[in-house]
């Protein structure tokens, strides 16, 4: 009887051979490319006079640098414009498919991949971006790589890899109403820490994970890297198959049954053994808010910022003191007392249609607080934007005082013009609250889309599960 984990199966089915040194030559099915981590890789190919091994495995789109305001005049900042133009010219030179900035299918590469069917169950998926773990939601082995490895995959269709250990994060029970996949992800990181998954591939399982939509699973897998693991994944089920059906690059009708049969095995066997198992009760997860400068510095919205003096370990105490100083917070301060200057709804973590629906649903005719300087909604792709507009979500946001933008990474990492000012507090649906991440001196609080929307209205954090006015 087989006792493989999902990760074992994905690994074994892509191992071309083992090297003499005990590493594996791993075959890569899908290579996603964006403008920031690829120019030096293409340059490397040119210098060595190499060509891409398999052009049909590559899908490119610019996302990090693109403006989210009117694009008819192009990109104002010269260095950013050159980087996007460099992606265009590299894709043209090497014959690669690209959804360019003016293409209606352009968007954040981790939104575009699943949405277009370019990422499918059973695939190996890589991209020069740590949030490639997102695609594991479809039952794929997906992980981020550096630029040298981008060049390596372009040239060889393979990576030389050592297999990671297996971790199961099992979330049992049912999430409460108003608690989302984002809260689950943050609660898991709070539990195991930002290095808790280092050296592991994480499979998420249990009743609460199976109950998530495929988009919710993407949010969960997206944040795997914030727990230190390069890859996160969820077993294939009926929801996965229904999600994939009919998408542009999904199997055509004549191959559909064969594909479905192949995908039926993409789950851990009953007797599979994991090197580490973490059990979490989904029913106890509350809406989460980060208070510090690492995703593990997270608390339920009803909590209070930690006091350094309560921490016995001197290194940890120093970390708390430094984080509080940077964040401009006092130990013991209630999370709900943190006042917000900006709100950002977007990023590869939370910019899909369900995220926008979740955020719009809690607004209920209310207005963004006057004390909030800016509230942005940045859809993950052109297709998400169009869908949201068809549902009238854009009107709900703009009537409440949110700005409705063009798709891209935007204020998640502030490579374009969307950023925080020095000392500004932001409720953000993105994935990293590092110092300076959203702009130098900016103070990021990671939350779910619904939590961000109610925070925009109140001007401070509130518990969305207790927000009586969210429903008429």
């Amino acid at each position: 009887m087989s006792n493989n984990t999902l990760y074992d199966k994905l690994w074994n089915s892509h191992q071309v051979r083992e090297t003499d040194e005990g590493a594996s030559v791993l075959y890569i099915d899908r290579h996603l490319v964006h403008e920031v981590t690829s120019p030096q890789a293409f340059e490397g190919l040119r210098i060595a006079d190499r060509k891409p091994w398999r052009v049909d495995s590559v899908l490119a789109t610019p996302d990090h640098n693109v403006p989210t305001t009117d694009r008819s005049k192009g990109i104002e900042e010269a260095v950013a414009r050159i980087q996007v133009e460099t992606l265009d010219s590299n894709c043209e030179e090497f014959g690669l498919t690209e959804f360019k900035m003016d293409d209606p299918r352009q968007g954040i590469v981790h939104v575009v991949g699943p949405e277009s069917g370019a990422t499918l169950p059973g695939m190996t998926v890589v991209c020069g971006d740590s949030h490639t773990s997102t695609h594991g939601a479809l039952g794929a082995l997906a992980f981020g790589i550096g630029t040298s490895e981008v060049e390596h995959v372009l040239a060889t269709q393979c990576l030389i890899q050592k297999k990671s250990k297996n971790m199961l994060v099992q979330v049992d029970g049912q999430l409460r109403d108003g608690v989302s996949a984002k809260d689950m992800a943050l609660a898991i990181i709070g539990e195991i820490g930002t290095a808790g998954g280092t050296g592991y591939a994480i499979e998420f399982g249990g009743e609460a994970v199976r109950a998530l939509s495929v988009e919710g699973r993407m949010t969960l897998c997206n944040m795997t890297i914030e727990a230190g693991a390069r890859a996160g994944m969820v077993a294939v089920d009926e929801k996965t198959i229904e999600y994939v059906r009919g998408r542009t690059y999904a199997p055509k009708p004549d191959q559909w049954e064969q594909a479905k049969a192949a995908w039926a095995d993409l789950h851990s066997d009953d007797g599979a053994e994991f090197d580490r198992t973490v059990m979490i009760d989904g029913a106890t997860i509350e809406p989460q808010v980060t208070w510090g400068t690492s995703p593990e510095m997270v608390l339920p919205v009803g909590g209070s910022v930690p006091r350094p003096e309560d921490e016995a370990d001197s290194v940890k105490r120093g970390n708390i003191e430094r984080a509080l100083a940077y964040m401009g917070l006092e130990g013991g301060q209630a999370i709900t007392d943190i006042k917000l200057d900006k709100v950002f709804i977007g990023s590869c973590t939370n910019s899909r249609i369900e995220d926008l629906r979740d955020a719009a649903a809690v607004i209920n005719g209310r207005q963004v607080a006057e004390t909030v300087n800016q509230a942005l909604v940045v859809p993950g792709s052109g297709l998400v934007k169009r869908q949201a507009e068809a549902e009238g979500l854009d009107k709900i946001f703009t009537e409440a005082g949110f700005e409705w933008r063009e798709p891209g990474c935007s204020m998640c990492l502030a490579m374009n013009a969307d950023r925080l000012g020095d000392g500004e507090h932001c409720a953000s649906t993105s994935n990293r609250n590092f110092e300076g991440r959203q702009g130098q001196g900016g103070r990021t609080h990671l939350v779910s889309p619904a939590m961000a929307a109610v925070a925009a209205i109140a001007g401070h954090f509130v518990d969305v599960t207790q927000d009586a006015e969210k429903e008429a």
Partner: protein
Amino acid sequence: MDAFTTLNGLVVPIDRANVDTDAIIPKQFLKSVKRSGFGPNLFDEWRYTDVGEPDQDCSGRPVNADFALNQPRFSGAQILIARDNFGCGSSREHAVWALLDHGIKVVIAPSFADIFYNNCFKNGVLPFALSADDVDRIFKEIDANEGYRLQVDLAAQHVTLPSGETMNFEIDNFRKECLLQGLDEIALSLQHADAVREYEAKRKQDAPWLFAS
């Protein structure tokens, strides 16, 4: 890639855990399409007191005198030591390029984030882990001794302290050989080309939907 064999270098301490790649090289500098020139912006937000911009001359910028890289006693350091989970966050290889461009060839910490760790080896930078206690001891010794140097020997997999004492470190054989010889990993992988073609032909039969017609 340059080979790495041994190094006797001055050590600069970055006394923080979870040093992320956004801190090592902030996002505005990622707009470059080159691999070089990132050194002056290494740890930009910690190193300078103003806001850095790409393509700016950094020589006249106001510096944070407390930050280790700005202290004359650590000038010319080739070894960097930090606390747990060094290099977490983004996959940006620019972080390694910035360290290297500044002259850092060895990074020591109790633990590393996977992608950063991997990226180091592609650029001739040696990262290795020592126990948290050993790292803590080195921090204290640096503090007490100006001009503190370590002798790193990759083939022997150990680092020698000024006292003459050695500490061993782990590294897998493939990475070690690539680094010792400065090997081109793509050329190495292309030696498996026939096996890859064979795998690919079988995959095309088993999963034809993965191959555009």
